[in-house]
């Protein structure tokens, strides 16, 4: 029997980026906010100081930075004809665990989606006619213009480095001319570029493209954010993605919010407690709180007026399923919405090898790169191409971590002395050009509960059913050709293309950009949450994170995840608190 605890105003399930943002916002109105995090407390000096931050073996290869698969993982299959098996070791994506969540180990590439990305269904159908069969793409129900002030807040919170491309409607030289209208420039100047970016810039300019610096959450200057938190200049050590930053140089909940939030008496945090269930009252229309369990197996019932799911996309979706909120999507019938429109990211690229030039990519940073956006979203005419969407193409120099970085030219043996020689010869003289492709929703790709495998508490694991779709493959083939054109012009000896071919493989690392499952939209008939991220079924339940994306755009999602969190927080503060109930009438 769960022990009942004194009630709080708001309980947050999970304490990463969105949890920290919501807690900081909602405590401003005097609400008593409790966050429950299943992992441990983490801060820069105690958990990833400079003396251990760059331990590649420990954090990445032994997976100490990520969710513990021995307690809970998910099962995977490419399609319904297969039997899903548990992922016992993370591969293609790396969910975080502990305070700060995945935001501790991200790269810091902080984008805004294009205005047309929010209208992916209506815009594309209007311009190109009906989509391929099976595609379940839909509009977000919120527009870029509505999110713009919230993007701006997050960029200022994080001290994003970049160059505006469209400032109040004026196209700015050196920025991304395709971006939506922004109300302010980035708070910090772009990162220092290295040899590889200069070559990329020259090559793309020759092709008539407009290169611009990638928007970066790695600090280019000492920065004090609007809350007074201090972020220090990046040292370009190249340990961002998969690592915590020991130098206070990467925006995370730890560096941007927690120093202030943790001093706020209205906020409290429980770590090493896992939420098992959102509790509903007898009508099923109201959440009464959550049930959570501590490390000793003691269960507690935490009553709250407002429950907000702030965990990772996969965990939020699964908690909805385990709590019996909404109907689980069934691809056989098309019925149900929870778990629908699982999407990912379609990555491809080309390595470029130089003979006479050092790229020295050990001087790197998670978001150190030059990009072009001509082939993203609907920035180009898709007529006759057979797909919608696209992606940015970039030359990022994120790292040369010695175990992970092994670029070898085409035709090199996979082992032995020739392989070793090739790794050594090219280690300092290579770079990569990558396409960051969108992932469009399809009826066959989805999440549900596994019928066989359970977690440490005996609850069914999440089951993922996913493969790249015909739209994904056509889009990626197109983007990869554009990558080839650029890579071939960068002046290297040779290139090695890595197209996205064959079925999706859940093992090689691609990106931790899992989206969908609790999608947002304009109607309860086709979405789990409304445009304010409020559950249609249970109005005192809100769901944050990339799970609300109806499909994924050709950008890294964190900027949009955070903008949506601020947008939802704003709606809760300005409207919901005064008059609790549905913010959109169904």
């Amino acid at each position, binding site marked *: 029997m769960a022990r009942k605890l004194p009630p709080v105003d708001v309980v947050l399930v999970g304490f990463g980026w969105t949890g920290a943002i919501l807690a900081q916002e909602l405590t401003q109105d*005097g609400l008593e906010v409790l966050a429950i995090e299943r992992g441990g407390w983490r801060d820069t000096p105690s958990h990833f100081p400079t003396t251990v931050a760059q331990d590649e073996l420990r954090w990445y290869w032994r997976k100490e930075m990520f969710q513990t698969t021995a307690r809970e993982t998910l099962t995977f299959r490419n399609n319904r004809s297969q039997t899903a098996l548990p992922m016992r070791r993370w591969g293609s994506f790396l969910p975080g665990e502990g305070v700060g969540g995945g935001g501790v180990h991200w790269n810091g590439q902080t984008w805004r989606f294009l205005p047309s990305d929010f209208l992916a269904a209506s815009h594309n159908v209007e311009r190109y006619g009906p989509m391929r069969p099976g595609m379940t793409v839909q509009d977000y129900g919120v527009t870029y213009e509505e999110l713009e002030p919230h993007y701006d807040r997050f960029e200022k919170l994080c001290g994003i480095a970049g160059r505006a491309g469209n400032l109040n409607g004026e196209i700015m030289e050196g920025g991304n001319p395709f971006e939506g209208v922004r109300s302010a420039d980035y708070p910090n100047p772009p990162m220092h570029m290295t040899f590889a970016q200069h070559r990329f810039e020259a090559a793309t300019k020759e092709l008539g493209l407009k290169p611009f610096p990638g928007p970066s959450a790695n600090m280019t200057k000492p920065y004090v954010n609007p809350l007074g938190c201090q972020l220090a200049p990046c040292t370009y050590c190249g340990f961002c993605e998969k690592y915590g930053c020991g130098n206070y140089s990467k925006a995370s909940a730890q560096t941007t919010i927690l120093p202030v939030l943790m001093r706020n008496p209205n906020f409290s945090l429980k770590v090493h407690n896992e939420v098992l269930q959102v509790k509903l009252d007898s009508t099923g229309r109201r959440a009464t709180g959550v049930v959570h369990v501590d490390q000793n197996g003691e269960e507690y019932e935490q009553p709250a007026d407002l429950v907000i799911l702030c965990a990772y996309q996969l965990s939020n979706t699964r908690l909805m399923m385990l709590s019996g909120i909404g109907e689980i999507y069934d691809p056989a019938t098309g019925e149900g919405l929870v778990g629908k429109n699982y999407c990912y990211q379609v990555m491809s690229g080309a390595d470029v090898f130089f003979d006479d030039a050092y790229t020295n990519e050990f001087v790197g940073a998670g978001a150190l790169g030059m990009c072009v956006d001509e082939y993203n979203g609907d920035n180009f005419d898709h007529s006759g191409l057979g797909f919608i969407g696209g992606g940015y193409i970039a030359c990022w120099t994120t790292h040369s971590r010695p175990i992970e970085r092994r670029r070898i030219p085409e035709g090199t043996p996979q082992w032995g002395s020739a392989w070793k020689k090739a790794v050594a010869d090219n280690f300092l003289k290579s770079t990569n050009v990558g396409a960051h492709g969108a992932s469009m929703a399809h009826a066959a790709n989805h999440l549900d509960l596994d019928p066989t495998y359970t977690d440490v508490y005996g609850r069914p694991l999440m089951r993922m059913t996913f493969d790249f779709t015909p739209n994904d493959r056509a889009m990626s083939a197109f983007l990869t050709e554009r990558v080839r054109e650029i890579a071939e012009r960068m002046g290297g000896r040779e290139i090695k293309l890595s197209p996205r071919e064959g079925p999706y493989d859940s093992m090689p690392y691609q990106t931790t950009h899992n989206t969908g499952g609790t999608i947002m939209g304009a109607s309860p008939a086709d979405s789990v949450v409304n445009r304010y991220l409020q559950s249609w079924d249970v109005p005192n339940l809100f769901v944050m994170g990339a799970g609300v994306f109806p499909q994924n755009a050709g950008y890294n999602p964190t900027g949009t995840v955070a903008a949506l969190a601020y947008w939802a927080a704003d709606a809760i503060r300005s409207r919901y608190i005064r008059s609790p109930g549905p913010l959109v009438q169904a």
Partner: protein
Amino acid sequence: MRTARHSAAAALTAALMADPLPARAQETVYSQIERGRYALITGNCQGCHTAPGEEPFAGGRGLDTPFGTIYTPNITFDPETGLGRWSRDDFRRAMHEGVAPDGSRLYPAFPYPHFSKMPREEVDAIYDYLATLPRVKKEKPENELPWPLSWRFSLAGWRLLFFEPQPFEPDPGKSDAWNRGAYLVEGPGHCAGCHTEKNLAGADKESRHLMGGQLEDWAAPDIRGGPNGGLAHWSEDDIVEFLKTGRNAHTAAFSIMSEVIDYSTQHMVDEDLRAIAVYLKDLEGEERAAPAAPDEEIMRAGAAIYFDNCSACHVSDGAGVPRFFAPLAGSGKVNNEDATTVIRVILEGARAVPTNAHPTPLTMPAFHWKLSDAQIAAVATYVRASWGNRGDPVSASDVAGLRKRLAEGLGPDR
């Protein structure tokens, strides 16, 4: 929706209404209590009279002195374990004369020689303010002192030798700001408690006033601000900024000074911080002898260790990132004749005090598990002799000695 927000004013009102003594309720008008609250801030009473992580002013914090550990008493008004049964005169006598109501002598770890400079009204105001605080029942642990020091009668001799109650006398030849600064520094602020070297009996060496001291294995720097002083290169603004925010262009506060800033100086009005700066800038220092020349091989080793382990934050030329990562070039701590703090910071790291102005506790990690005594000595020697710094070399045995003394607090290897 319920809200859970308590304002300080509401708490104060509640405390006043709960007071059982009508006579005091009449006397203790708000301005008097507010005066007491501020006076208490200027004396940083909370720092010593609070055990880490426990109720404020309930005492129980152990102060490590060369003579043993002295535990601070509970100064809330709990009648059994605190000051609840003390009269105002009892309190004034403790503050001005170092004598408890039962006639026993207080250890001078309680800096009553400084507090004797405070006017009676100021001391009464502190008493009235303390009376409004929540009462906490908490016994004081027994001091850990060897005989005869454990015998309080021995303190009579100390008082005879080293104590003379001295009400503060303004210097008519100096500005009001200077006099206010002198009062704060020498009176309630009791800066000399840390920043002045002690004699064998634990009393201040007057000839070394504010030229730096050592306590609890920290070397407190020279804070005299005139020519040759430790703060000669700090402007008045630098001093004000440091005391207000815990950071300035030269340094960041950590360890014991972080408590002073956290509980005391960041809450003081700017005029008072300015006054402290005016006074300190008027205190001349003493010219220092040239440092001994470091061994070239050790300097080469120290430079290599520095570039691998330190330069990412402190920058290759020791410039640091002002207000983020402390500059080492010109640092008072680095240049201190006593290298204890430099060695200690390398061994166990340092956490810049989070303040209202700078809430981020920027922290340097510990290197005790990563660098040997000889390596720490080399890098400390390098830092103390580079970029215009003038500190003497550090030896491996200096590091070994401090490592041994700190062993318990250093924590596990990573």
